[in-house]
């Protein structure tokens, strides 16, 4: 038994993305959810499964606000930035098992106006081990925890900060084509190189945004999706993967390999396609380095060749693998990757702001909690 094309994305929705709001995460989450439900041609009461992004609203909030008469399925997938894409697997498993028909995946957050990342990670149970043994020495935020992975990649493979800059610049160029991206000012490689060092080798322009907003998608059983308002986007393959030593990067046998390296081969096998078949990729970009590493771990090039791959121009619009066509977490907004799913669906509907001509098959990844990975491969029906 496989989840191959047993589920589809039938609706997507986003709020306006902001840096500064007095609204609550729940309010933003509900607004994005309503838009996704409307996009799917459903009523809020049609939702019978919910997977809220962790650290925010709970299933009960959706029952209360939507008046859902019989919520049949609720879950969370607590994998940080890998949660949203991992929730696709969870949702399709539920609809394919017949537990429910329409699962809402939703995030709302005030990452800019509320608690910042250095504070948030201290509250996350996944960071308990790091909290006891590394935070007292000053290794607190993801930039500091991930920087040694990037440094080791650079030392082993000759990867350079200029290659990270290419990712930052390419992503910003895409954001400038998207009216719902918060960063609209052009940047150059020089701007990247002159941006202040956060945790070497990661500069400010290697880091993702802190954002306020909400994003949501509706996953429906494939047999239901055929008769819905929009042509469905079918999930061909989906998987999650956890790296060795998931609780501490320090102890990982190979700190340049992520959980995605385990998930991607399973997802591609389920999908029945290879990385060479992918037209567009939305790759979780908490930091530029993490994009480069995931390009390798997803199988688009060999380990250590991510630098030359991005340097070739491959990830730009018009390149052989356009990446983060919406502007990503680096330049659109940090919605923990829910915005990456929204963008992939728009690309496969042919309705994206920065449309990849003729995009038929695409991939979206998630990355979080020091190395957890998730991946979904989709096609337009």
């Amino acid at each position, binding site marked *: 038994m496989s989840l191959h094309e047993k589920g589809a994305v039938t609706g997507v929705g986003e709020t306006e993305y902001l840096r500064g709001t007095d609204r609550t995460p729940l309010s933003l989450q509900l607004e994005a959810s309503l838009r996704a439900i409307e996009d799917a041609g459903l009523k809020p009461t049609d939702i019978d499964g919910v997977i809220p992004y962790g650290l925010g609203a709970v299933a009960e909030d959706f029952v209360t606000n939507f008046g859902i008469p019989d919520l049949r399925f609720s879950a969370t997938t607590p994998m940080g930035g890998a949660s949203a894409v991992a929730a696709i697997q969870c949702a399709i498993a539920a609809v394919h098992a017949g537990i429910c028909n329409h699962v809402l995946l939703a995030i709302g957050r005030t990452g800019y106006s509320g608690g910042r*990342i*250095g504070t948030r990670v*201290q509250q996350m149970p996944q960071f308990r*081990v790091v*909290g*006891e*043994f*590394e*935070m*007292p*020495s*000053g*290794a*607190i*935020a993801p*930039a*500091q925890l991930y*920087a*040694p*992975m990037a*440094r*080791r990649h650079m*030392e*082993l493979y000759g990867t350079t900060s200029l290659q990270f800059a290419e990712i930052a610049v390419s992503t910003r160029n895409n954001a400038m084509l998207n009216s719902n991206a918060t960063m609209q000012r052009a940047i150059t490689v020089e701007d990247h190189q002159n941006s*202040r*060092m*956060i*945790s*070497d*080798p*990661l500069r400010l322009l290697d880091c993702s945004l802190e954002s306020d907003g909400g994003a949501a998608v509706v996953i429906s059983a494939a047999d239901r999706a055929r008769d819905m308002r929009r042509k469905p986007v079918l999930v061909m393959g989906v998987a999650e993967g956890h790296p060795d030593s998931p609780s*501490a990067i*320090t*102890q990982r046998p190979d*700190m340049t390999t992520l959980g995605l390296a385990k998930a991607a081969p399973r997802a591609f096998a389920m999908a029945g396609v290879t990385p060479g078949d992918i037209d567009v990729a939305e790759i979780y970009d908490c930091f530029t380095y993490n994009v480069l590493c995931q390009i390798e771990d997803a199988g688009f090039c060999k380990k250590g060749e991510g630098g030359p791959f991005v340097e070739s121009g491959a990830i730009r619009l018009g390149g052989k693998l356009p990446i983060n066509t919406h502007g990503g977490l680096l330049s659109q907004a940090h919605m923990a990757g829910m915005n990456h799913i929204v963008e992939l669906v728009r690309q496969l509907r042919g309705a994206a702001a920065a449309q990849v001509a003729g995009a038929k098959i695409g991939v979206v990844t998630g990355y979080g909690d020091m190395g957890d990975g998730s991946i979904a491969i989709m096609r337009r029906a």
Partner: protein
Amino acid sequence: MAEYAKLVPSPTPDTQPYWDGLNEGRLRLQRCADCGKVRHYPRPMCDACYSMNVAWMDASGRGLVHSWTVTHHAFHPGFKPDLPYTLLTVDLDEGVRMQAQLRGLDASELRIGLPVRVAFEPATEGLTLPVFEPA
């Protein structure tokens, strides 16, 4: 004396001997009392044989640089006075890794495989933190 403004650990019964060791100037690692596998960070179970019988050993304190980062931004106000500071990831001779701040060497001198040794710095009442210096 000014109040200690940095993050402090919350040891558990599984990890307390590690922190006690640092206060005594010893780097202590868990070794499975049944199969002998050394593990770090401290935790209740051996991942090789699932034994929960724990022995503690004194590590040599010697190791080789595995990776590093130089932090220029304080994500917690308590670390602002330390900026910039270097965090080293080190392969200990005992086959496990640990992370601690670097002392006594400019970060530009770092390379994978550079020999280092652990030292002990009193942080506040009842808390000693490990640091690394060139071996």
